[in-house]
């Protein structure tokens, strides 16, 4: 299935978990937040959260600004 991660299209096996995706992405263990389909997913829920086909995953962090 296809999932969009930070604007990139990824091919993943059905039933992939958010946690796995973020691990492969090398998302740091702190200072980030993740939204799936426009809603925040708390860190605790990453491992158990299954991604649906066409899901949009976005990973955010703090940058210079304001």
């Amino acid at each position: 299935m296809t999932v969009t991660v930070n604007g990139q299209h990824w091919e993943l096996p059905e039933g992939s978990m958010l946690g796995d995706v973020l691990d492969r992405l090398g998302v740091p263990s702190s200072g980030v937040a993740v939204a799936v389909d426009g809603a925040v997913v708390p860190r605790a829920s990453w491992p158990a959260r299954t991604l649906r086909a066409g899901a949009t995953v976005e990973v955010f962090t703090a940058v210079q600004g304001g």
Partner: protein
Amino acid sequence: MADDPLVIAGREFGSRLILGTGGAGNLAILEQALLAAQTELTTVAIRRLDTGARTGVLDLLVRHGIEPLPNTAGCRSAPEAVLTAQLAREALHTSWIKLEVIADDRTLLPDPIELLDAAEQLVDDGFTVLPYTNDDPVLARRLAGVGCAAVMPLGSPIGTGLGIGNPHNIAMIVAEAQVPVILDAGIGTASEAALAMELGCDAVLLATAVTRAEDPPRMAEAMRLAVQAGRHARLAGRIPQRFWAQASSPQRP
């Protein structure tokens, strides 16, 4: 000389200068500026990982024990701003948010309708909301009314360096404010930061004036001193203005 701390949502700050981190050429310069400013609270933006935006700022703040204040810069609608605030809370483990909901890229002015809507939602969601607002005393009152922890009226549009365009509005906001008033945006030089405090503001928030100055650390120092100067001047009770002169030396016999 002694001064009360700035208190926002029950939390005390010794410094009345809040710095923004945007616009700094590199982290080394930013670090020097932050230290020269002696700020205890500093804004950061929330952006997608690997979008090339300058990261590393968080480690810098942590290293110096400076509290990060995430903002919702760039958001155009209440829903966008609410989501960004929630992401910030998740990423930074803070419920404090500098709420920005702007109407367009040319003026970067806040949209009063969306701003108030977002503020209300975020307060209900348990956030400590510090809204970037225009200098309309009525909107400031409404924002305080829905539970914002402070109001942050602009001096003039972000990055213009036009200073405080309408001191009378700021004075009216201060006159009835039940929460801290933080002058945010438009400051270009030190005397304007001092004026903000003389008008009765409780603190000043600025970024561009420091980060884009020729010598950011020195301008940060200037702003630190100016905010203190304006604060003391407000507390000291200035002399009245008069049309004709008044001698400061005794008359001669």
